[in-house]
């Protein structure tokens, strides 16, 4: 901790720290440690352990395939229906886990926030790590299913990370809003599961978005539409085709959520220890 220059810090009302982003960078190790803590304790004292990360998607997959594929008889293009569903489920579950972890993160870390200083943004950001762990496990499930159907994704799979990032940014943007709001109004704790339940049906998880030929642009206002379509496009040989305008709408919405979420979070974070 030998520092040659002594940094001067001025604490004053309403003075947003000019060095906020540098501070955030300085605390990157803490971000890593908090994420590591969450991952480490995630499956402690459970009998099935990591298996839980598989059970959920497998059951959802079976139910959705049955309802949308068999009962409703929806088309799946050239891929088997379960693969279509899993390609929707992957980003959705990543979003749902990241979003709900981030939303509850500030309140869950009250004891830290009331006793130590660090850029508060670290808390929701680190909470996303656990969601990525479960995502990686579900990705393994996808690989298994692909092998079973001898379905090999083409070059488009290389673009998949872009859509993972889109999903994460959407989750962080909405999560920042909700976690900052929950600090003041615990009402929003009830809003999160409700939003996720509705979102699951408003997003093309169990079916392909090509089933809605009209209103595609409006539908894409839900940024998860862009993310899910992108996942399918990357993994299922470019089907359904990605409409650049729809994708742009989703990306723009995601960006808007993230920017506004950051703005609101930073406005509340300076006094968060007083209200939490």
């Amino acid at each position, binding site marked *: *901790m030998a*520092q040659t220059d*002594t*940094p*001067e*810090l*001025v*604490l*004053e*009302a*309403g*003075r947003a720290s000019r060095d906020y982003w540098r501070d955030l960078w300085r605390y990157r*190790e*803490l971000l890593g*440690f908090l994420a590591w*803590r969450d991952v*480490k*304790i995630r499956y*402690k*004292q459970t009998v099935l352990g990591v298996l839980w990360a598989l059970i959920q998607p497998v059951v959802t997959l079976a139910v959705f395939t049955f309802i949308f594929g068999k009962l409703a008889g929806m088309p799946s293009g050239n891929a088997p229906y379960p693969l279509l569903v899993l390609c929707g489920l992957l980003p959705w579950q990543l979003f749902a886990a990241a979003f709900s972890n981030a939303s509850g993160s500030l309140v869950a870390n009250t*004891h*830290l*926030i*009331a*006793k*130590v*200083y*660090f850029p508060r943004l670290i808390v929701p950001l680190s909470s996303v790590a656990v969601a990525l762990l479960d995502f990686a496990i579900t990705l393994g499930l996808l690989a298994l299913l692909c092998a079973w159907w001898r379905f090999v994704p083409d070059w488009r799979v290389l673009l998949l990370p872009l859509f993972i990032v889109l999903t994460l940014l959407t989750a962080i943007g909405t999560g920042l809003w909700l976690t900052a709001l929950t600090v*003041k*109004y615990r009402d929003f704790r009830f809003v999160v599961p409700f939003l996720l339940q509705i979102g699951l049906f408003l997003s093309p998880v169990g079916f392909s978005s090509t089933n809605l030929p009209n209103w595609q642009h409006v539908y894409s206002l839900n940024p998860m539409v862009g993310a899910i379509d992108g996942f399918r496009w990357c993994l299922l040989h470019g089907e359904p085709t990605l409409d650049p305008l729809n994708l742009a709408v989703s990306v723009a919405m995601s960006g808007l959520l993230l920017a506004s979420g950051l703005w609101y979070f930073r*406005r*509340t974070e*300076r*006094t*968060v*220890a*007083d209200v939490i």
Partner: protein
Amino acid sequence: MSTPVIRVEGLGKRYYLSHEKRSDTLRDSLTQKFRQLGRRLAGGGGAEPAGEEFWALRDVSFDVAQGDVLGIIGRNGAGKSTLLKLLSRITEPTAGRATIRGRVASLLEVGTGFHPELSGRENIFLNGAILGMSRVEIRRKFDEIVAFAEIERFLDTQVKHYSSGMYVRLAFAVAAHLEPEILIVDEVLAVGDAQFQKKCLGKMNEVARGSGRTILFVSHNTGALQAICRTGLWLQQGQVAQAGPIANCLAGYLSSGNEAATFTATNPEKPHITSVTLDRTALAHGRFRVSVSFKASAPLSRPVIGVTIFSKLGQPLAGSNGRMMGEQWAPGVMSEGVITAEIDPLPLHSDTYRVSVYLGDAAQDYDQKLEAVEFDYVSPHFYPQCPPLSVIGQCDLPWRWTVEPK
């Protein structure tokens, strides 16, 4: 020593005490909440919330020079913790400014962020990171921390299986190995056994003397303050009452006013205690004087007040009441009054004590106020080499020694 390491100018912090309005129906409260919510979202987070304002800290100014060890004293609610919270950036001030030169580490609690499911080893890393140490730094000091905490054998045991003593030792060990330029410490020495407390004090002393580091230290332990600090800052109701050499501040603080606790009766029909007042001035002169006011709806034939002094660990040390004196106790008939008990001189060693009081009459007890007041006692007797009180006890009795050489 030219520019101060910490300069505080007119610092203030305002809180709002919310008095929630009673609403008669759920719908009323909901519409009220929604209106509030809408207003706040529209008007921004800075909009005036309803409620009475309260300045936890107001117009506080002081300087701390490099290498200084500043002891902050004051009663509960005087604003000590708020001041530390502002200086450690946990929350921001409402008014004024503070300029800090150098890296700050604050220790407002022992074991912040410890996770019970993780092992001792893992918690050292986690806690170190939370307190602002880098991974490399923690690894470098790891062995030292483990040795200081004396937990070698349990390093890979989950912390939830630790005894509370081990837990505190480990937590303090991590904190003690921080190397910031400015260290802010709040009341952490109130935990742990006497021997470990001594070790912690020693460590703090070493840190303070050895390295020219600046320390801000809040404590009720007057002995520790005297031993470690050079300068003091005495806060009273959010404002600076006195600043300067620690001995002067302590003297002022310990003799200031009375410690009074007032009570509202849960059942005014029953005879009850209305207030308990401890005479600080008497205490500063080595006398104990406590006054208990009581009230009854019907006159009490022989009101009896009981007073018991407890150690801070809850052991009763000395108690008395009128009833145990039998016929000697003849206060007369009254429905309201003040009864004062006095011990002169108070034969106790310097420490923190608590006083419980009881109200009754010749036959029965009516009311009790457990730990009604707490006080820090600095005995007029100074012993240059006093063993820990856990060894010799709290009582400072008038010993007489005789030596007969043969």
